[in-house]
């Protein structure tokens, strides 16, 4: 799931037709993707495509997005659309700044989470208790939260040493772990630039070197969510509130309670995402989230409202983002990669009988290939757009089988079932 972003984009393509694919299929797809990456690296000479540094940067960028996506997942699975994620993340960054500089990174994480819960509760009161339109309430939170955070930061950070009206003093970073021995061994292999082997070493080294404990926590939380929502009675009831609240009610499920719990979890994860962002960048800053809440929501949709999928989506965003920030030669190589990926999509779509889509994908793929071979670099104005272009293409061409929870976003009143 965290092996280079594009790689994983392909996983979505051979979408399961009602039956679950075995883990081996996913492993095979990941290996195939890495082979493609390796070929592109050899062709283009852009070693940064699979370097440990890129993987590390992608992981760091992906974690806040994945947390935002997870927050969206909890809310929507219980039938509440939560576009207030961005606002809840802002609350999380402030909480992390406030507690983080005084009592260390872990206190920051806890405080960020708690402030996120406050945002989630606000959304719950508005949408569940009072039946306010979910979008209106979400927008209100997105407007209210930055204002509140700014007000509080002026109050608490202006006079703190090293702080300002719009930024907190420094927060020390969470501890990072490295698997001793393995890392240097992998570095040696990576430096050899062998086909596939070095790429694998690079990716593995990125995943095992200087990994923040926060990243590990995020992985645990994603796995935990998958278990709770899909393997426990509690999760089944919660999801039933999103699929068919009236049916759930008729079976004795307290829908209001589950929606409240889901929104508390949603706020907590959004706050956690904000806290991760603040702690890993070393301070709270006004406007720091920069739309990550919305991108997280996109990652969730990309992932078909499933934890594994949203982690893949966040990984894809993180990877292209890291690529765009680290070097333009790698972004140029991304063109070729995208071209190959689109051709693969075209083949898959053709085999499943979607001639039109297949044609569009093939044409675009050839176009990207031509673009790659006829130029030496991507104009800087387009580099920043790379993550969005890649995601739009993957969403548009490879993932038509998305299915949101059936009653997400609809107001629900007890006893007035549909």
């Amino acid at each position: 799931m965290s092996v280079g972003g594009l790689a994983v984009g392909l996983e979505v393509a051979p979408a399961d037709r009602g039956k679950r694919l075995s883990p081996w299929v996913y492993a095979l797809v990941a290996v195939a993707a890495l082979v493609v990456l390796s070929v592109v690296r050899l062709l283009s000479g852009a070693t940064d495509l699979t370097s440990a540094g890129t993987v590390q940067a992608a992981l760091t960028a992906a974690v806040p997005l994945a947390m935002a996506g997870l927050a969206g997942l909890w809310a929507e699975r219980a039938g509440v659309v939560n576009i207030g994620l961005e606002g809840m993340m802002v609350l999380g960054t402030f909480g992390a700044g406030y507690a983080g500089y005084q009592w260390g990174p872990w206190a920051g994480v806890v405080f960020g989470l708690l402030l996120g819960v406050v945002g989630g509760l606000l959304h719950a009161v508005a949408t569940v208790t009072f039946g306010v339109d979910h979008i209106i309430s979400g927008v209100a939170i997105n407007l209210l939260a930055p204002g509140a955070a700014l007000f509080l930061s002026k109050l608490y950070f202006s006079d703190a040493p090293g702080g300002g009206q719009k930024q907190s003093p420094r927060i020390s970073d969470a501890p990072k772990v490295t698997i001793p021995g393995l890392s240097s061994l992998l570095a040696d292999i990576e430096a050899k630039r062998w086909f596939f082997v070095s790429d694998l070493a690079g990716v593995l080294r990125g995943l095992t070197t200087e990994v923040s404990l926060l990243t590990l926590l995020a992985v645990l939380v994603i796995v935990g969510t998958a278990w709770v929502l899909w393997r426990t009675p509690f999760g089944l009831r919660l999801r039933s509130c999103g699929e068919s609240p009236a049916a759930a009610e008729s079976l004795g499920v307290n829908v209001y309670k589950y929606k409240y719990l889901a929104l508390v979890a949603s706020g907590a994860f959004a706050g956690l995402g904000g806290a991760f962002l603040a702690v890993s960048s070393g301070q709270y800053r006004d406007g720091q989230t920069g739309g990550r809440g919305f991108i997280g929501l996109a990652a969730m949709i990309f992932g078909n409202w499933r934890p594994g999928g949203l982690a893949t989506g966040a990984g894809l965003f993180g990877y292209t983002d890291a690529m765009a920030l680290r070097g333009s030669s790698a972004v140029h190589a991304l063109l070729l990669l995208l071209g190959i990926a689109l051709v693969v999509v075209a083949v898959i779509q053709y085999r499943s009988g979607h001639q039109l889509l297949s044609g569009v994908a093939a044409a675009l793929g050839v176009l990207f290939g031509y673009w790659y071979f006829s130029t030496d670099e991507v104009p800087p104005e387009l580099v920043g757009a790379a993550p969005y272009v890649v995601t739009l293409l993957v969403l548009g061409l490879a993932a038509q089988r998305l299915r949101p929870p059936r009653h997400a976003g609809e107001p629900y009143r007890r006893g007035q079932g549909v």
Partner: protein
Amino acid sequence: MRGKTTGLVASLLAAGLVLAACGSDTATTGSGGTSSPGSTGGSTSPAIKVGLAYDIGGRGDQSFNDSAARGLDKLKADLGVEAKELEAAAGETEAQKEDRLRQLAEGGYNPIIAVGFSYAESVGKVAKDFSDVKFAIVDDFTEGTDTGANIANLTFAENEGSYLVGVAAALKSQTGKIGFVGGVNTPLIQKFEVGFTAGVKATKAEATVDVKYLTQPPDFTGFNDPAKGETAANGMFDAGVDVVYAAAGGSGNGVFKAAKAKGKLGIGVDSDQYTLPSLTDVKDVILTSMIKQVDVAVVDFVTSIKDNKFVAGQKVYDLKAGGIDYATSGGKIDDIKAKVDEAKTKIVSGEIKVPEKK
């Protein structure tokens, strides 16, 4: 029943919005009271009321805006001016900037100082409507947009200061690979890049400069996203770069963090970043800083108003005028200071012409 509660919630949320708006625009009114009356020796003229609109980051950004704030604080202490400071919010619209300036002008503040090039259009518009109020805009001079009989354009020769830190970077680099991280790809930041590259090349012709801008306009978050700065700098360090110049506002913190983790060097911008309290734990990697004395420009401007010597149009603060300099705090460039000073003298005398554009 349900309609009623919905209405209630709606009005609560509306109140929330109003609060939010207040939060982002809270004014801090300068006291001025401590030194103004009595001490001015019988002058009966009322205190000058200065309106100051900050760019994103505002007072306390430890960088560009703080430099303007220092100038204002000095004015409060020395001239006893009254001041009103308003802050910008991230991602705000043109109309919000215009409103902010109008609010100051209607509140009787004169002169009004807009800090940052993002005010270019709004200053041009508002200045037309308030022809008896004097405006100053820091960092921009665009003929036809923000020029007029009552507008002073205070610009800086950032390219000259960047040239000097470029010289220092080239002399200190072991690998001959040097990096430049720009916040947002705007003409202003390109001026830093051009000067810096010129300084590097003039000192070591075979050295290379890796250039990366964090975001492209109209996305201005690149000035305020340390995580992006860290990622970009890490990419450069991994590629063998060992000195990175961060012309990226608040994102520069991320560059220093990366430099610290990898044992490399960074160069600061706008203020003497080595001495900033928020950067104490990374200050040992800050080689030097390109200093842009916005405070000098602010004090000069308000003093000129007080003395009735307002001059409209562009005023360039360069090395010669003392508006630009480089920092020596930390003593990391003591051994090469003579060479940097030599370049400085040559720029001041006109022997070296630093380019402004690519």
